[in-house]
């Protein structure tokens, strides 16, 4: 397990370093002068010179990368060149909102999707199983931004039951929860289908195992057999799916944040791209990449811990 842990962490570090390089090159691959693009066509020469100095654009490119790498590795992602606020602080202010949105979206999807998958597997080929299959495929097929737009139009604009924009008053948990309903619904909907299909497939496999038949033969309660014995094993591939799919969930959160004008990392990146605020874009993408890598690492380690066969597969 220790060797697996080392290898997996090493791979994660390589991924983060690649992301760092890509983000650095991004600034230099954009057509045009980065300072003029960021400050606008009418920026004064003095403002452009100040920007270039702050971003080290007047240094040789290798030295620029060295400075960028050293600063990033020491936790300094620079400052917003306009407001001079710390990029790390700006991103960390936005991150909890995105994580809460993704987690709540995933949670409600799991609460619906996992039981749906279980019942479908317990009664395969019944009308309930077929209906669940159709609904699952439908929810997987509908892009989350479309769900966001339609749910916003129906529940917020037409019915006026839920808010169109924002994340609620800071400090008012009820208001924040009220503002979370629609975005979380939009983010989680496709996961209902994913989880239902994945749990059903795994459960069908597990339900035919001899130890499940033995459990039934011993007269255990059906609910106990399904949820305590079968689901415990069948859920393993689902954990991996959640880990791998969390990146997709962050993308869905990005759309939801833009459409519902919720503060979060996705909205932050979008706004900063629009404003050509490169240091914040670089910092936000780097931190998001780090979160994504960490979650994947966590999921892989959990699976390796539960299933020793996986440890030899890397």
């Amino acid at each position, binding site marked *: 397990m220790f060797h697996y842990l080392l290898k997996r962490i090493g791979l994660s570090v390589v991924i983060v370093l690649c992301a760092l390089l890509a983000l650095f090159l991004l600034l230099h691959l954009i057509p*045009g002068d980065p300072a003029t693009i960021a400050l606008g*066509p009418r920026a004064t020469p003095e403002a452009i010179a100040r920007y270039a100095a702050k971003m080290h654009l007047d240094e040789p490119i290798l030295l620029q990368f060295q400075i960028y790498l050293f600063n990033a590795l020491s936790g300094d992602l620079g400052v917003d060149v306009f407001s*001079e606020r710390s990029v790390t602080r700006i991103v960390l202010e936005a991150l909890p909102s995105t994580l809460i949105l993704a987690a709540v979206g995933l949670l409600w999807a799991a609460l619906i999707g996992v039981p749906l998958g279980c019942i479908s597997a317990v009664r395969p080929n019944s009308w309930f199983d077929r209906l669940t299959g159709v609904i699952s495929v439908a929810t997987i097929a509908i892009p989350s931004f479309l769900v966001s737009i339609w749910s916003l139009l129906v529940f917020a604009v037409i019915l006026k039951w839920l808010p*169109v924009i924002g994340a609620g008053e800071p400090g008012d948990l009820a208001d924040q929860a009220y503002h979370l309903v629609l975005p979380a619904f939009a983010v989680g909907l496709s996961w209902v289908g994913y989880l239902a299909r994945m749990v059903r497939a795994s459960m069908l496999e597990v339900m035919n195992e001899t130890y499940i038949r033995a459990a039934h033969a011993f007269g255990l309660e*059906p609910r106990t057999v399904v949820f305590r014995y079968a689901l415990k094993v069948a859920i393993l591939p689902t954990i991996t799916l959640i880990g791998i799919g969390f990146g997709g969930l962050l993308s869905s959160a990005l759309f939801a944040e833009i459409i519902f004008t919720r503060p979060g990392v996705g909205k932050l990146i979008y706004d900063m791209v629009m404003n050509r605020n490169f240091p914040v874009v670089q910092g936000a993408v780097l931190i998001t990449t780090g979160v994504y890598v960490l979650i994947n690492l966590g999921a892989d380690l959990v699976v390796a811990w539960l299933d020793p066969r996986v440890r030899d597969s890397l």
Partner: protein
Amino acid sequence: MIEDKLNRRTFLASSAMVGGATLFGLPLFARDASAQATKLIARTNGDISILDPGYMIGDAEIEMQNAVLPVLLNFHIGDDGVYGWQPSVYVEKFEERDPTHYDFVLKPGFMWTNGYGEFTAEDVKYTYERIKTTDWSGNFEALDRVEVTGKYSGTLVLSQPYAPFTLLGLTSGPAAILCKAAMLKVGEKFTTEFPATCGPYVFQWTPKQKLSLRPNPEWTGPKPAFAEVDVLIITEASAAELAFEAGEVAVTEITASTYSRYKDNPPPNGAIHVAGALQYMWLGMNTEHPKLSDIRVRKAIQHAVDAEQIIQGAYDGTTEKSNGIICPGLIGHRKATKYSYDPEKAKAMLAEAGVSGLQLELKTLNEQERVLAAQIIQSQLAAVGITVKVIPLDSGPFWEMGDDKKGDPKNLQIWLMRFGTNPDPQEATQWFTSDQVGVWNWERWKSDEYDALYKQGIAESDEEKREAIYLRMQEIMEDTGAYVWVNHEPEVVVHRKDIKVDVLPSGEMRFRAFTKA
């Protein structure tokens, strides 16, 4: 199996109950629109970056400065629709003694927050002499010094006559006055927190979410109609428009396409307000390019392009036809062009120049309306035998393409360009002088008469004479054949009918002047 406890009926029934309770319970949370009676909820399209008037970036910062900082003059639109100024609520008297001396007297009793005492003439002197050293020094370059003659009185002394000083300098964003004592304490520069304010509101900031204005308990001036203002940061115009339709926002700027939709059919309880049109778009031609160096070819293009078709086709008829670079409401705004849409005349001029099978590249910013406008021009020029290739560009290469140092001006042929301006003709005319060739004068023509008139226009304070100067300058531009004037895009807001809005022609909202209709 499990049907005795967890069967499909139980599951479906439970799900239906939970779902029904949620859906039918939600309306209980729906907000009461009357909650906005004393609190105004508006929208801005971006967060603040730097509130310091010397280093600010955009619209939201100016809106907040307007709400919490004093100024000498306010922008004002006269009954004749012409832009001008009037003394602000802080000012007892403001008058032009001569073209280089402006005397002011402040009203006593306006207090700075955070215990910094009274607003005095020393604050005016500090602010305007400081602004000359900042990024926004442009409109204050003619200011030599501020002489303080009393606690509340002083004189703004210019180094030379500069007619736009009052309108461009003293009503613009950088004219917001700062508290000298507070500024000295914070090191003469600030970013997102005002060191001290002196207005009906105090400012609070929730980053990336909203800008809040709350009552200033020390304010002794006229009370604003709305005790509190929340300005929600909504980047996307379409999201803001939905928020307005859902009743969550009382006023927001709208896009050209939404203006077109709302113009004849506004949303319930909504009204449209056109704040102004301080933008001018034209089709530019490089007079030094071999394909366009013959003025007859350029004039043929002037006759071949119909701006009305572009306005209808790309802007749904929501913009005003342009006849020059000076926008509606400003001194020197033209009512007509010397050329007219006449494809037959265009063909004849091309034939006279001996040009056939002409192929041109039309460059434009890669934005929906611009690309559509470019395609309409493409079809109009095709009708007179000119083949046009439309090349949409991102903002980086677009804004550099005519620059001598960064772009490739020798190969630039024709392009669609839009500039924004402010309420004085000097701003728009400054980009086309001889020293701007290869900087912003991408058409690359020079005129001694134009350069001389530019200097005269700045120094001339007589409005009739200024009008004549700026009309002639646009005529000179048009006579080069390098311009086809297209349109002036307006700044439009939609607002609740029970609110009377106050929006500057450049789109910034003055919340302290909002009233209840």
